[in-house]
């Protein structure tokens, strides 16, 4: 049996050097006894500090083990030393061991790591600085007393240096002290004795603590699970907890028993102002287009308005000669309240500029004015509007026709065609040719730009894009022919 001497205050290098030497010497885990000077000072000097042999081979471990071991070594359970050495030993022959988190040793290691991380987290949470004074150099000075379960002071102190850089501070604990002066972070492993400073700000903090508490939702167990009683003695707010709990029920009873009161005087005045405001905000729309947009925004003709952000109305000059009709707004359009600004809108814009059509001379709208979708996690899946929804929304499309009186109507996709004619037909039967409709108006059908985006094969997508551009060029020729 080898008796190995170790300080055992969370110093990873100390343990690592010993373990590497033992492993290089081929010492079995069962043949090592670890003597920690911290746990049993009587044993100090009883054991050896193993030395790395000259010809010791390089030892490698998975990174996950190194990280876990660095944390676990801070644990106060003396079993951490043999456990870590056993794992180091086993890792030499089974490299995938760390992936098997159900393994006894790996599970035990993760229990240690979890406990150390939690302790470190609680230190970040529950250290309470008290202001002492201002130093000669003008820096404010603070001190705190904290009682950790494990040897986490060195591990956790850099957090405080990153956070409280512009003040001098000191955190004293029974397992050592950390201090910061703006330049250096000093760690002293000597056990400190309890600090007893006071700070006037604690009173304001207690006022906050007692008033942010809602007596109608008493959940003492939930509080204690996260803020165990062992921490209370060093938390200035915790002394209030018993009285807050004791008084909660009475406060709730009093709220329920209180008679309704008359509103304060200013309430009546404010209500009168709201009424006035309501009549004032009924702005008269600037033109017939704005008037229609206002009507569409308030549409409740079908249930689609419920989940949507807003109705997306048509956009463009009221004297536009060409009107483009899509299916329905998509995700981006629904958010921004404008038609054809998402990915499909970009495909359309590209086609328009290829064909030499200025977007601001066109009237762009959709067969259905609200976005129909299905929530799927963090995204919205587009859902095709059904015949009934298209029919309901035709009401608005007709109003847009009356207003714009376009000479050419371009239906982008089957839904737009269906909205205009009430029929569904295969795209290839109706696409790319002018179809005369009433009042000398021409209908021209092509695909919806979103269809192009959904084609997975790159060359097929390129071909369809080309065809779409050609269709828009045909619209330009049709428009020129009409003018002539």
């Amino acid at each position, binding site marked *: 049996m080898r008796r190995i001497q170790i300080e055992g205050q969370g110093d990873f290098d100390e343990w690592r050097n010993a373990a590497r030497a033992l492993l290089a010497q081929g010492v079995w885990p069962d043949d090592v006894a670890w003597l920690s000077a911290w746990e049993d000072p009587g044993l100090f000097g009883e054991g050896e500090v193993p030395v790395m042999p000259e010809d010791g081979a390089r030892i490698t471990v998975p990174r996950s083990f190194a990280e876990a071991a660095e944390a676990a070594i801070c644990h106060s359970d003396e079993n951490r030393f043999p456990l870590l050495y056993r794992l180091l030993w086993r890792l030499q022959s089974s490299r995938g061991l760390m992936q098997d988190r*159900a*393994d006894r040793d790996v599970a035990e290691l993760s229990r240690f790591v979890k406990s150390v991380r939690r302790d470190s987290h609680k230190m970040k*949470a529950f250290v309470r600085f008290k202001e002492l004074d201002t130093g000669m150099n003008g820096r404010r000075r603070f001190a705190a007393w904290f009682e950790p379960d494990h040897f986490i002071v060195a591990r956790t102190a850099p957090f405080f240096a990153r956070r409280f850089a512009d003040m001098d501070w000191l955190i004293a604990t029974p397992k050592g002290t950390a201090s910061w002066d703006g330049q250096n972070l000093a760690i002293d492993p000597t056990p400190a004795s309890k600090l007893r400073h006071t700070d006037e700000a604690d009173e304001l903090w207690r006022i906050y603590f007692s008033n942010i508490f809602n007596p109608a939702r008493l959940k003492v167990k939930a509080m204690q699970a996260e803020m165990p009683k062992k921490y209370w003695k060093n938390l200035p707010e915790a002394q209030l*907890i018993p009285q807050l709990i004791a008084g909660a029920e009475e406060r709730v009873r009093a709220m329920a028993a209180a008679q309704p009161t008359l*509103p304060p005087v200013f309430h009546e005045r404010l209500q009168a102002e709201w009424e006035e405001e309501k009549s004032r905000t009924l702005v008269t729309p600037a033109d017939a287009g704005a008037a229609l947009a206002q009507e569409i925004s308030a549409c409740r003709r079908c249930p689609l308005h419920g989940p949507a952000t807003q109705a997306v109305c048509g956009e463009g000059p009221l004297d536009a000669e060409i009107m483009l009709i899509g299916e329905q707004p998509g995700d981006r359009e629904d958010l921004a*309240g404008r038609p054809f600004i998402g990915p499909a809108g970009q495909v359309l814009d590209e086609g328009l500029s290829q064909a030499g059509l200025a977007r601001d001379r066109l009237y762009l709208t959709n067969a259905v004015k609200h976005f129909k979708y299905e929530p799927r996690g*963090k995204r919205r899946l587009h859902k095709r509007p059904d015949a009934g929804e298209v029919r309901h929304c035709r009401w608005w499309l007709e109003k847009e026709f009356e207003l714009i009186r376009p000479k050419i109507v371009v239906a982008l996709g089957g839904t737009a065609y269906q909205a205009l004619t009430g029929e569904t037909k295969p795209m290839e039967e109706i696409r790319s040719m002018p179809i005369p409709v009433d009042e000398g108006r021409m209908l021209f059908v092509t695909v919806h730009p979103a269809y192009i985006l959904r084609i997975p094969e790159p060359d097929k997508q390129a071909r369809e894009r080309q065809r779409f551009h050609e269709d828009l060029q045909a619209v330009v020729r049709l428009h020129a022919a009409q003018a002539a």
Partner: protein
Amino acid sequence: MRKSLARRLAILSDAAKYDASCASSGTQKRHSGPGAGPGGGLGSTEGSGICHAYAPDGRCISLLKILMTNFCIYDCAYCINRSSSNVERARFTPDEIVWLTTEFYRRNYIEGLFLSSGIIRSSDDTMAEMVKVAEDLRVKHDFRGYIHLKTIPEASPHLIEKAGLFADRLSLNIELPTDQGLSRYAPEKKPLGIRRAMGDLRLKIEEAREPTLQTRRRKKFAPAGQSTQMIVGADGANDATILGSSARLYSSYSLKRVYYSAFSPIPDASKSLPLVKPPLIREHRLYQADWLYRFYGFSVDEITEGREDGMLDLDLDPKLAWALGNRDRFPVDINTADREMLLRVPGLGQKVVKSILSARRQRKLTLEDLKRLGASLRKVKPFVTAGGWSPIRLVDRSDLRDMFAPQPEQLALF
């Protein structure tokens, strides 16, 4: 006579406690220590939030959560600060809020500030003053801790723009799950305005995430995203409606969180709302269901299909309730099932599922292994097969529900 700072702190934190959110996580990492750049400043954020205290209501205290003022021109029936209430009123100056935030921060009481406010004069006046507090903290005091600002839906875009520059998180409360509920209980609030504001926020946040062409750097705009809150139990909406609303909000506006706040008695309450015990278990079940939707691949329909009234089972957690209603999908073999199905097993959380997937590449897993991975065997056992364990008859038992539902309280002789 002007009230003391202490008195106003009492009033304005009391007025803020009905906002459930206190999160300080998920923002960019920054610090003021060595290497942090000129000035140094005060504060840091490191990804995960820190709860510095817990109140006896079980809620975490991470931020200084206060109102700038509790004067309000709105008259929302559920709110302690509504204009018709006789609650004591007060207000802070921006300097006072800055002082409280930095002094609390230096003593390590808090991670930062969550500032909200009643609406005074106009939406823009109120928003501008809140933005000023955030700006002072960031610019004058080089404060690098966490800031959460409540946004006012009707505020001008340039104020929201500025708010997002200084704040880590912005939030806007939807308050009630349906537009009808909102019109009834919060007549001055406009549902359309709230949705549009959330939509605008999402677009702004996403725009900032795109690296710019010249510098290839991302702009900073509300790096911890946006969140919202719904009050549960004030109007008659059932759980299916509430969760449907949440799904809509998550998918539409990329919200980081929807908070559910059980409607709780307030001093000087409105006559239009009953002062009943807050439905805390219902709130808890809604959070569990929310998690199932966001992280476990459940749809809202699946979560709420079990009962005709659209309410969640208060006795069973929603995953267990779903499993009991879908016994034909069980037992699941933990050594072969895919991730999606493992996530649907009662008692297996995301972490445990991850560990199962990794460990079973090494060898065949047993129930004992599941226990070491941190699963609750009592819950898991009836629903899985593992090395040496098969529960086939257990899933068919007619009393399976009784094994999990709380025991009825024994009657005592009187």
